[in-house]
């Protein structure tokens, strides 16, 4: 059981979670102030002395060099934080909300509703994730919102399972029974008694989903199913790959987006790892 107010305390105590939070905050700032930080428009073919600057190596004006189309890699990297975070946070929000609602309803009402929802969850568990995203995106068109939709459709499954089991255990606790004796309605019991007690857990699964979503968007973009209108890190990797940047030894093009993806995903896992310890103190000694 953790109180929402203890979240601050938790970041103070868990150094890893603190590092994760700082990384998140940095990336959010970068995404918000991208136009101010980036020296060029990421789509712009930069000209130097009237000629497009192709395949430049890092130098003073192009901190990370340019692409084969003459775009500034550093600016792309900065702007790339936007789709990453948009996908990450919206997908995570959907995953959290859908998963929590399904888990709550299933666990609280039980019986046939529970059987139905849990069998549905089983079906969703049977769908392979990455192929599903690719198929959906190729049907609905390449847009980051379709990637978000694909994730919202599938990734709630873990959250729903875990929330359900948590609801089952809270439902049996005496204070919930006490609410029933007082005459509280189902909605009152769910929102005032059960919901606050499972919120930390759904937040934990939400933060895990952020990492998943960012990875998925990168993977899909890298495979060439990404949104061509928004430059994401996965798209940058794809671009670099198809223009054979590696064979030219242009590590300054491949590495930075890879590192950014890794950092953001890692930050999400650090936070959730810390949160897990708070939720299950038994893990602490391990």
């Amino acid at each position: 059981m953790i109180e929402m107010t203890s979240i601050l305390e938790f970041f103070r105590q868990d150094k890893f979670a603190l590092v994760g939070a700082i990384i998140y905050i940095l990336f959010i700032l970068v995404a918000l102030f991208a136009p101010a930080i980036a020296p060029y428009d990421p789509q712009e073919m930069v000209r130097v002395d009237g000629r497009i600057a192709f395949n430049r190596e890092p130098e003073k004006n192009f901190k990370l060099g340019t692409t084969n189309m003459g775009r500034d890699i550093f600016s792309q990297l900065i702007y790339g934080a936007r789709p990453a975070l948009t996908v990450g946070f919206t997908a995570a929000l959907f995953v959290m909300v859908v998963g929590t609602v399904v888990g709550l309803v299933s666990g609280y009402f039980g019986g046939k509703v529970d059987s139905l929802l849990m069998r549905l969850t089983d079906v969703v568990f049977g769908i392979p994730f990455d192929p599903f995203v690719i198929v959906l995106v190729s049907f609905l068109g390449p847009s980051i919102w379709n990637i978000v939709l694909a994730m919202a459709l599938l990734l709630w499954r873990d959250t729903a399972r875990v929330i359900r089991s948590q609801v089952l255990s809270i439902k049996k606790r005496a204070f919930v029974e006490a609410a029933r004796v007082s005459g509280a309605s189902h909605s009152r019991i769910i929102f005032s008694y059960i919901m606050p007690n499972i919120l930390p857990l759904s937040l934990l699964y939400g933060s895990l989903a952020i990492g998943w979503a960012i990875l998925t968007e990168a993977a899909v973009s890298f495979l060439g199913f990404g949104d061509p209108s928004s430059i994401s890190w996965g798209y940058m990797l794809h671009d670099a790959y198809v223009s054979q940047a590696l064979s030219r030894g242009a590590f300054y093009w491949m590495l930075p987006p890879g590192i950014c993806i890794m950092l953001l995903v890692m930050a999400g896992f650090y936070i959730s790892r810390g949160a897990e310890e708070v939720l299950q103190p038994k893990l602490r000694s391990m």
Partner: protein
Amino acid sequence: MAASMNPKGEDGYVVELRKIKKEYPVRQSLFRKKKQGQCLTAVNGVDLCLKEGDSLGIAGESGCGKSTMGRLLLKLTESTEGEYLFNGEDVTDLRSKEEMLKFRRQAQLVFQNPFEALNPRFTVQRSIMEPLTIHGIGSSTEERLGFVKEALRKVNLQPAESFLEKYPHQMSGGQLQRVVLARALVLKPIFLVADEPVSMLDVSVRAGVLNLMKEIAEEMRLTTVYISHDLSLLQYLCDHTAIMYLGQIVEYGKTEDILTKPLHPYSKALVAAIPTLDPSKRPEEVPLSNHVPSPVDLPEGCLLQDRCPYVGNACRGSEQVLTDVGDGHLVRCDLVCANNGNLKFEGGKAV
């Protein structure tokens, strides 16, 4: 006024149970659902009548059905058979929300574990105010707050103001149980069930909570049912006591009578086993064997037959009936009844 177990159609009871039965279906395996007729019988045809101000203790070992009884009385679980009249009205099946709310307002529960019974995220004020909000009692928050303070004073948490903003983890077990009691009383119920109300509390504070419950029940003329495995507690709280065994009441009478001269072999064993500060005063032990039958597969005839040292052929064949042996003392044992309650057991033999 004594509660009678076999009313002759009398009115004026707060609680009246008629042949109440609770069975749980038993799943045989993961894939085959219930096998026909396989049920776990938790409560097996109990009759009970309580008038205003009556206090009844229900005692027995774990698994005897006493907790299920409490849940049935509060309609936290539905009975499989039988009727339940509450204040003269049939509440066996409450279909409408209004009827249910009306029942909930009048019947309240005190929980076993005060550390669990309060929402850890609610302050004392919010916990006690919840029932008022739910039932729409009081026109304003100020008025409700007044009721909350009154309830706190009633349970001796004074000054009430100093407890309003506290969270459960800031309070001791004894204080928490008083808050639980205040929450039950704030609706001014007429019927109160207490399930092991002090078993989680330290000995030195138990007495305070017990005495308080007793005083309040008397003052408010509450009809109360106390459920406990500890017979020695019931003598402080209840005029009458029912001993349950495998879902049946095997003996019922004045608490004092049950403690001093229990008649049913099971009650005798139960009473003799209570530890006491003065071991020299302990009555002779009744050697019950440990062959407790499974509640899924109950024997025919007396349910104690495989454990009872006095068992005879008659016990195995016919079902035992709860019979008055005089003075409102009821026993479910043909052997005892045949001798008008004078049957004595000594050294493992009926004398």
